[in-house]
């Protein structure tokens, strides 16, 4: 039996059937680690159906702070007979398998290099509970209790969490704690507790929070002053709107009248959703929508209109695994080009690329400021992994002196005082014209918005030079955008090679970089956070011999965009892609990066020196 020992460095995975009510027990365990002051990275791996199919919940605990996926399992709670064989196989040698021993295990396929921890969960539940529903549900709580003993999770932490969750409903709290205790006691009694793989309280999370990206985006929209949302349900973006609805209802209901300071319309489809957003923004409200892959395709005609007619739009794309319906409950970063160049004709859009929940919150707010400043669609490009999984994150904050930026709007006073308003005239040489809200002034400032050819005065045109002048200004505006999107996060120590990445590659990259350093590969880093790319991005790339572009799609879309936008010699952009639908792991990154680097004679030399 291989010897597996670790404190505060482990991967715990639960294998369940969906619809069985396991998610709450599993996330209770997940959160308990966090409460013990430990960085934690839970991942929910669920099927695209409602009940009866395999689902997994994987928790990475790491006092080193490596909260990305690691790629193997130390402790497996195997509750799904359909996937049992595979679940057993996924354990590292020396790992621990917690299973329901009510029925004897099939001796076929038994591994000698792992530890079996049988607990007769069904039997216990049947003997303790009468209702089928209770038996089913408490089974989950019982194994959570057993884990408390096995992994040394502080029992009080679990009780506290339950207490907070069901505050005021003492009977529920009691019965849950009782189930926890049952599991705890059983494990204590029959197994050496804690296991050599276990946790211990630390003070490593400080004021951090454990939150999913979609909640942060939805809350960001509330704090940005968004008042209108039009949307259509689609996994994994639905919870952005759910969060907006929840927080807006709580924080934005007029206390005296009980009426709402926001309006949310569930549209009949994505075309209508973005149409509403365009109408509302045109009319002076901050409005947004959220969708995923298929929605982006459907919205592309309207995105072109908003680009060309210069209407602010905030669109959240929580990417999932494409193409087409693809694997809707798996993650990917594969809508980049579809977003950046959405719509026919020459059109291009501003993208924000958050990597953490606090960035989700910050960029969500920023997207409204930028959309109104630039009068164009801003697409917040998140993904399922960031959006639907909890991550440890800095708290969400708003600068105390924050005021929203509504961009260039000619109001009644300006018009009254002689401001000469022409809708598409570039008076500030930043490519951004003034707009007016409908209804502003009885005689001045009205203009006609159209997706057809127009000149700088806002008039209809079919004249080539007028059309072209306007299109060129739009290019200028895009250059302005490059100065306004969030700057990349850079670590540059003058090394010859670098990695470039964005979004949810961050977590595993932190770990991979450390590992690479240990192996003697030392790399500069740049994490992109916005598109169009800023001067800093180009300067960084130009300072380096080779840049490994890491992304979670097949076609190296980000690398393509770098080439297109920056005329970068492709020889200097090495592509590293992972796109099987699972969040990328540090292990994969290390292997892929060393594979590329060790091909290079210069690097081999450096390494051997």
């Amino acid at each position, binding site marked *: 039996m291989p010897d597996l020992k670790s404190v505060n460095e482990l991967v715990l995975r639960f294998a369940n059937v969906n619809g069985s009510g396991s998610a709450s027990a599993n996330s209770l365990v997940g959160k308990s680690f*966090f*409460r013990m002051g430990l960085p934690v990275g839970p991942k929910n791996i669920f099927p695209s159906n409602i009940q009866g199919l395999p689902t997994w919940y994987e928790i990475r605990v790491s006092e080193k702070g490596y909260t990305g996926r690691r790629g193997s399992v130390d402790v497996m709670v195997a509750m799904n007979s359909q996937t049992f064989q595979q679940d057993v196989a996924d354990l590292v040698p020396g790992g621990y398998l917690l299973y329901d021993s009510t029925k004897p295990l099939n001796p076929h396929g038994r591994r000698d290099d792992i530890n079996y921890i049988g607990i007769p969960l069904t039997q216990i539940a049947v003997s303790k509970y009468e209702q089928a529903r209770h038996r089913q549900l408490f089974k989950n709580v019982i194994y959570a209790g057993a884990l408390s003993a096995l992994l040394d999770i502080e029992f009080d932490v679990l009780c506290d969490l339950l207490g907070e969750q069901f505050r005021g409903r003492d009977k529920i709290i009691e019965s849950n704690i009782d189930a926890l205790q049952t599991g705890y006691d059983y494990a204590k009694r029959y197994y050496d507790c804690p296991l050599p793989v276990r946790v211990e309280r630390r003070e490593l999370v400080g*004021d*951090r*929070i*454990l939150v999913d990206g979609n909640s942060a985006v939805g*809350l960001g929209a509330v*704090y940005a*002053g968004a*008042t*209108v949302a*039009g949307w259509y349900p689609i996994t994994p973006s639905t919870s952005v709107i759910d969060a907006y609805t929840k*927080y807006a209802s709580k*924080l934005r209901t007029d206390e005296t009248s009980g*009426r*709402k*300071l*926001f*309006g949310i*319309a569930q*549209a*009949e489809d994505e*075309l*209508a959703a973005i*149409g*509403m*957003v*365009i*109408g*509302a*923004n*045109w*009319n*002076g*409200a901050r*409005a947004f929508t959220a969708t995923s892959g298929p929605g982006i395709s459907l919205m592309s005609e*309207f995105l072109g*209109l908003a680009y060309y007619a210069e209407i602010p739009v905030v669109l959240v794309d929580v990417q999932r695994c494409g193409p087409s319906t693809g694997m809707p409950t798996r993650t990917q970063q594969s809508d980049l080009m579809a977003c950046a160049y959405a719509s026919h004709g020459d059109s291009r859009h501003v993208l924000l690329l958050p990597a953490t929940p606090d960035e989700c919150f910050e960029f969500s707010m920023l997207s409204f400021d930028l959309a109104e400043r630039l009068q164009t669609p801003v697409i917040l490009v998140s993904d399922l992994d960031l959006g639907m999984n909890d991550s440890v994150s800095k708290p*969400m*904050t*708003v600068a*105390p002196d924050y*005021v929203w930026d509504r961009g260039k709007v000619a109001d009644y006073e300006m018009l009254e005082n002689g401001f000469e308003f022409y809708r598409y005239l570039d008076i500030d040489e930043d490519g951004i014209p003034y707009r*007016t*809200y*409908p*209804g*502003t*002034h*009885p*005689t001045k400032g*009205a203009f*006609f*918005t*159209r*997706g*057809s050819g127009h000149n700088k005065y806002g*008039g*209809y*045109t079919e004249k080539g030079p007028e059309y072209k002048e306007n299109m060129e200004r739009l290019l200028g505006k895009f250059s302005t955008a490059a100065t306004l999107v969030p700057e990349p996060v850079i670590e540059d120590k003058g090394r010859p090679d670098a990695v470039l990445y964005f979004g949810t590659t961050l977590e595993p990259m932190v770990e991979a970089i450390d590992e690479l350093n240990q192996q003697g590969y030392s790399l500069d880093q740049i994490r992109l956070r916005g598109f169009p790319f800023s001067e800093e991005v180009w300067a960084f790339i130009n300072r380096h011999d080779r840049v490994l572009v890491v992304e979670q799609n097949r076609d190296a879309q980000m690398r393509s965009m770098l080439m297109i936008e920056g005329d970068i010699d492709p020889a200097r952009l090495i592509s590293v892609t992972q796109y099987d639908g699972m969040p990328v792991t540090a292990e994969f990154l290390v292997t892929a990066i060393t594979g590329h680097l060790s091909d290079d004679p210069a690097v081999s030399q450096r390494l051997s020196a």
Partner: protein
Amino acid sequence: MSYAKPKVAHPAIAKNELGYTRRDYEGSISTLCAGCGHDSISAALIQACYELDLPPHQVAKISGIGCSSKTPTYFLGASHGFNSVHGRMPSVVTGANIANKDLVYVGVSGDGDTASIGFGQFSHIVRRRLNMLYMVENNGVYGLTKGQFSATADFGSASKGGVPNPYDQIDLIQMALQLGATYVARGFSGDKKQLVPLIKGALSHPGFALIDCISPCVTFNNHEGSTRSYEYVREHDVPVVTADYVPYAKTIKVDYEPGTGTSVKMHDGSMLNLHKLEEDYDPYDRKKAINYLLDCQEQGKIATGMLYVNPDVTDFHDILETVEEPLSSLSYDRLNPGADALESINASFR
């Protein structure tokens, strides 16, 4: 290329209560074909807004794509207008309306724009009970793309000569009635006497108002087999190929009494059997309206007038439960929940 009209000051010109002249409700010069029914609708809209004393800049005009959808440039030049994309006006006006409940919304669309590509959006905006005038300038063809049948084609089929359109037409009025619209009327572009009051009623109605306005396309009324159709003329009469010849046409006008019918000769020579509702027609009974329309359909008559109205309306904002003020007017102070609230949300995630 819409040419601005010379604005000549007429000192003695009539003004409405707000002090606006009729001219203040006009727009750029139309670039539609001479005689196009759509221009008559624009004129009726101008008159209705003038007579209702609406401040022009408090109206928002939103349309899709098509000859009909171009018309918002031709009326209410002092209003903001939005010529969006084909078939999607309803969603744009929905968003606009949520943002600012205080403007008056005029949605202009064509029959292709509404009954073909836009039929889903049309149906759903009716369900949402948006406070607006939804004007369909219904000519039974795709004007701007040169004359394909639309899904409302054959509203005049009973009397048209040749091969009937093989598809059943979509009757937008029946649809709207089924979908719960609270103001449903059919007009005819040439009947200003009837149309202007219908528009005024619609603009005054505090909920969703549909006017399905029959509006002859003078250029592409080329139903196969019609003896006066464009195709026919091209083949038989006009002495040179006229791929792009649009004969000069007069606007069709009618004037007849409530409770009576009239046959209108269209530009292609086909006849339209209009039937104006009786003065004692009861527009408050939805079921009766549905049956009335079914009867007319059987008789090949096209009922015009105020077919159904329910003054007891729910507006979309009632459903949304929004505050009194337009959302677009709220200051950041009112919208910002503040740092304390944020801190307690952060705490909930620890």
